[in-house]
């Protein structure tokens, strides 16, 4: 197995055995990027020199007996909506073209402290609004399994980089499924942790009550390593959780015998591709054969979760994006007064999807409509939390497809916002409830496109969620890697 295909766990073993250096791992990832970026466009910025310097330091530290833990010397990528001091951060928007953050996001700082080597910044839908990366102002990323298709989104660049090996793992952000859906579409593991457990300080805000940072990786164990490095209470995030944290790695080998698994009735049927449903059913059967008690569970409010999400997320976005006004950073348009300058700046700087959501959110919050839309959506959110609570009285975890479909063709949904929004139908409920959820690759369809399996758990239920995810990974035995046809010869 070549270096760029290793998991973090495997790379770490070789690193500590002295068989490879961090610089070797980094060069393997950079070579992979040189070979694939023209087709995939996973990255917006690759910080070759900065990464090489960090890798050299990681090697020197290890030689001196200083070991920062599982991520020490491991090349990772960051979605470009997380601030990196001195390295351009755009959130894939023209309005932030050239923006050099004067500070590191908490996750950036924590990855550096864990000894990780930051390769670069990955592409996303502008301000993380989208499900395909096609809303990026800097061009679409493509799926390593089929370069005519999208890698999903919004963390599509991170997903493509991890799948093809130009990073060993990456961070994404998940507001309605933006880590899990691209993980599913590219055959990697993607995790959204419990809301409040990973600091949002330095994450360019989309919808603050939903946004959560999490890892994309090539194994469940690697996702746990990444999560353990980045989470924890942070006084710089007012919504940060200050209590006891779960133990993601504690029960990875414990299996599912005696576990109660609920299959969500509402996340199946019309709109779900047969290959996805078949693969998910087969995995449910395997869980049952492995000793889990499987039952079907109904969570009726899931049917209106998407509607609630498309009021709450744009409403919060319209408030968060008010800061982009051409005064303190980023693009500035022309205007004779402050107001006309701001309005021109924003019209020029925001792409169509962002403009659409800012308008939608402004409307949903405006006088006379608040109760009917935003207020009502927040009540739906309470109802979804009640549905989850009721379900978790009888099961330990809930399972479903991660996405109703495999990766779709570039351009296929760009003229129909609602069809694009339906990509997130399986992932949105966990965001509205603030619960953790993970996508694990379980197989390929007849076109060789990956299918993801979602495991959801109650708030702070990461330990049991990882236990089931690790079992799913073992039962699936998914070991395929994408081969770019142009590179195969």
């Amino acid at each position: 197995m070549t270096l760029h295909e290793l998991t973090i766990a495997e790379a770490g073993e070789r690193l500590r055995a002295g068989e490879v250096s961090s610089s070797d791992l980094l060069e393997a990832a950079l070579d992979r990027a040189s070979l694939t970026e023209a087709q995939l466009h996973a990255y917006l910025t690759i910080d070759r020199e900065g990464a090489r310097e960090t890798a050299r330091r990681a090697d020197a530290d290890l030689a001196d007996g200083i070991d920062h833990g599982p991520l020490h010397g491991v090349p990772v990528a960051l979605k470009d909506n997380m601030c990196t001091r001195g390295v351009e951060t755009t959130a894939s928007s023209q309005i932030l073209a050239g923006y050099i953050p004067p500070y590191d996001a908490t996750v950036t700082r924590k990855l550096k402290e864990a000894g990780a080597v930051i390769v670069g910044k990955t592409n996303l839908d502008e301000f993380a609004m989208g499900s395909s990366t096609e809303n990026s102002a800097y061009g679409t990323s493509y799926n390593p399994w089929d370069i005519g298709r999208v890698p999903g989104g919004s963390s599509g660049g991170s997903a493509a980089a991890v799948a093809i090996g130009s990073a060993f793992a990456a961070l994404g952000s998940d507001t309605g499924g933006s880590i899990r859906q691209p993980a599913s579409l590219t055959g990697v593991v993607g995790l959204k942790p419990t809301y409040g457990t990973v600091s949002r300080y330095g994450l360019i805000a989309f919808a603050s009550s939903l946004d959560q940072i999490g890892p994309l990786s090539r194994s469940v164990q690697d996702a746990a390593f990444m999560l353990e490095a980045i989470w924890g209470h942070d006084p710089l995030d007012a919504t940060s959780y200050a209590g006891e944290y779960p133990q993601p790695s504690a029960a990875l080998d414990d299996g599912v015998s005696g576990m109660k698994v609920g299959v969500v009735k509402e996340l199946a049927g019309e709109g779900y591709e047969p290959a996805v449903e078949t693969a998910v059913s087969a995995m449910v059967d395997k869980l049952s054969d492995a000793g889990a008690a499987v039952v079907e569970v109904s969570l009726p409010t899931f049917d209106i979760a998407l509607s609630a999400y498309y009021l709450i997320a744009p409403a919060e976005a319209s408030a968060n994006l008010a800061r982009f006004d051409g005064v303190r950073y980023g693009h500035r348009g022309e205007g004779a007064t402050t107001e006309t300058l701001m309005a021109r700046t924003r019209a020029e700087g925001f792409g169509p999807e962002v403009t659409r959501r800012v308008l939608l959110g402004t409307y949903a919050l405006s006088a006379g409509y608040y109760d009917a839309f935003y207020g009502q959506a927040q009540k739906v959110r309470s109802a979804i939390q009640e549905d989850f609570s009721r379900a978790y009285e009888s099961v330990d975890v809930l399972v479903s497809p991660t996405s109703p479909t495999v990766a779709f063709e570039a351009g296929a949904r760009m003229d129909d916002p609602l069809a694009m929004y339906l990509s997130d139908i399986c992932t949105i409920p966990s965001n509205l409830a603030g619960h953790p959820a993970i996508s694990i690759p379980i197989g390929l369809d007849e076109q060789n496109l990956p299918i993801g399996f979602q495991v959801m758990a109650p708030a702070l239920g990461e330990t049991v969620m990882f236990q089931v995810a690790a079992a799913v990974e073992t039962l699936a035995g998914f070991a395929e890697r994408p081969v770019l046809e142009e590179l195969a010869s």
Partner: protein
Amino acid sequence: MPIDIDIAHVARLARLDLTAEELESYKTQLDVILDHATQVQSLEGDPREESAHPLGLVNAFRQDERRPSLDRDEVLSQAPETKDGYFVVPPAMETQ
């Protein structure tokens, strides 16, 4: 609830200087999305509170103590126009 969006008013509130053509196109798209979103009004059962944070956090206060802020020159270096340590903008009101 019939939806009739005054899109020009909404764009003004959002500080978006859009053309008449763009406004018309966004209005059509918003109509479709809002038509779907009215499903939230079909929620059945007992009246519920609005909720936001899943773990029931209500507020968080930091310690009232001095700590270093971001470097001023580094922050100002990102601004389109500055003068004497301030951000510069055109007049907030039209001048006669």
